């Protein structure tokens, strides 16, 4: 018994130390946000909070419509998340629990879209958005990604484990419609995976900069990553303002994460899946 206690304590200590290492850069991001760029470039870098946050935020606001950019980021990420959850759970369910013609080739196609480096699509994507008149439109950011191959893949995997075939058959016997089965039986069972997908989609949309780089032509329509990148140049980047902007940009993700990690846990405690 004593032996297991020791090894257990060791394991706790290792995991805790790992957690601290994981946290360090995150901590420094907030520390750097409160220092002028002269101090950030010092070595060793500042380890404690400084007094330059107001100055950094002032530079940030003078260089870009920061709060507007933040608003667009939120808007795009929310739409993107809602649509992705809907479309991908539908698609994933179809791939996992139905037999239909072209199923294998369609799935290969889905996976195929995951495999193309996104910057190779820059010019053709620009041409499509131009043809649709979607340049400078937020929908050009949240619609194309809404049927994300990643999401369909995740959902297919999850349905395969968490949605028993018998349950669907039984519902069909009871006269439940196909869409009824999807909304009333499949979706509730997918709750933990939907939480995961929501988190990942929101973060991906939040950090996406190639998308807005292609379609956004006006600084007041930029989302945050593109706006913040515009502070960077090979010489003379405003590092302090950049770190302040990055830190503020991370706060919504932090809130979202705290909320959705609860959801993961509740998925466990209520024993949603039998």
């Amino acid at each position: 018994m004593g032996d297991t206690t020791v090894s257990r304590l060791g394991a706790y200590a290792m995991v805790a130390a790992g957690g601290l290492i994981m946290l360090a850069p995150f901590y420094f991001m907030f520390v750097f946000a409160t220092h002028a760029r002269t101090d950030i470039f010092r070595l060793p870098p500042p380890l404690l909070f400084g007094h330059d946050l107001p100055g950094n935020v002032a530079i940030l606001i003078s260089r870009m419509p920061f709060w507007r950019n933040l608003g667009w980021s939120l808007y795009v990420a929310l739409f993107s998340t809602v649509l992705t959850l809907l479309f991908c759970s539908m698609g994933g369910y179809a791939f996992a629990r139905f037999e239909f013609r072209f199923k294998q080739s369609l799935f290969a196609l889905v996976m195929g879209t995951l495999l193309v480096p996104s910057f190779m699509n820059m010019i053709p994507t620009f041409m499509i958005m131009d043809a649709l008149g979607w340049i400078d439109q937020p929908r050009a950011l949240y619609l194309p990604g809404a049927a994300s191959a990643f999401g369909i893949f995740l959902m297919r995997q999850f349905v395969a484990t968490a949605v028993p075939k018998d349950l669907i058959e039984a519902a069909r016997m009871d006269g439940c419609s196909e869409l009824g089965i999807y909304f009333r039986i499949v979706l509730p069972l997918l709750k933990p995976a939907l939480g995961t997908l929501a988190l990942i989609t929101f973060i991906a949309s939040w950090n996406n900069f190639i998308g807005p780089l292609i379609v956004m032509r006006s600084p007041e329509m930029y989302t945050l990553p593109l706006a913040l990148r515009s502070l960077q140049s090979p010489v003379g980047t405003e590092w302090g303002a950049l770190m302040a902007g990055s830190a503020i940009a991370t706060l919504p993700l932090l809130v979202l994460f705290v909320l959705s990690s609860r959801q993961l846990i509740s998925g466990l405690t209520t024993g949603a899946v039998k």
Partner: protein
Amino acid sequence: MAARRRDPARGAVLQVLAGGLVFVLGWGAMVAEARDTLVVAAFPAVDAIVQEALPAWHARHPDVDIKVVSRQFADHHTAMTTALSTASYLPDLMALEVGYVGRFARGHGLENLAAPPYAAMALADRFVPYAFHQGMGPEGNLAALPSDIGPGTLLYRNDLLSKAGVAPAELTRSWESYIAAGTRIKARTGSYLMANARDIKDILIRTDLAAGEGLYFDRDSRVLVQSPRFERAFELARQVRSGKLDARVSSWSNDWSEGFRRGTIATQMSGAWLAGHLANWLAPETRGLWRAAPLPGGAAVAFGGTFFAIPRGISASHKVLAWELVQMLTLDRDLQLQAFRMHDAFPALLAAQQDPFFDAPLPFLGGQPARQLWRQLALRVSAVEVHKQDAFAEEVINTELDKVLDQGKDIRVALADAATLLQGRARR
């Protein structure tokens, strides 16, 4: 002002009418009535320079707004490539960094400013010569006008030199004396002569070019790297590295700025604008300790520079306005000086260089009136032929240099290997 604002529909109609009018009346017509917007695409800090020129612009064109679209440096040039490739959503005016000007000038997406109605070749003698010629394409077209330049200079720590008993003239007389001085500085102060041995190579391959030679290729795409120019560049870089005279750090890294602050790097060869960055944020605490000198051995090269170009695919009326704005940004002495004062953007306009501001002592450089020196250095730089594969060639040469410096690879073998790789690409 408020009374002049019109409802959007009417504004659009007027815009179309005004555009048609300009088309009919031809060049030189003033666009006075419509509320119009010019889009300028730029990167930091050019975006700020354009913003600061707006009051002057609005004094002339109260009805034409200017919208500055700023992106990160590389993002900006990527976005410009995309816009030119599809010829849609083009800005009316684009800033281009010198490294991209040659490439963009090879395509046909930019207005040829040498042709009428611009006839900008007549403006040649108003700019620093090399800067003007760097905006020209291979077919004699003029793709862009220069706004700021980066005359190469040697910045050195005067205090470290005194401590080591090295006279400033020893740094600049020749490359050999520069390295010899570095050995003494290292021995007596412990400080490195320079940040990275690669800096020497970068300058030497840019000096003593024959007419019609580019850096790596000549006009007929023949590879030039197996030449005395490259051998000497590699040889001197190797001497620096093997004498442990370089700090082996790369520019704009934390180690680099920390090296300046702690005085572990005694000299830096760069564009004149670096003095401003050192003073403002890289190493403000070293104020008064630095001096500026010409590059060793009378080398004359440039570091960086900004140009303005007009895309071919925009409307005729906007071309008129964009051209006027280009002229303001590049030919207006006061605006050029303002950009120099606020952003260390060294004027490409010769008239701006005659301002008394150029005679003022620089406190960061111990009161030295260094701008006079830089003004002279800029005149000696010559334009370099640009080849499509220059970016790739630079990467290959840097790789081979690293092998020479770190793994003791023979210089001739290294250059022969580079030549083989480059020959495979020269005509792609």
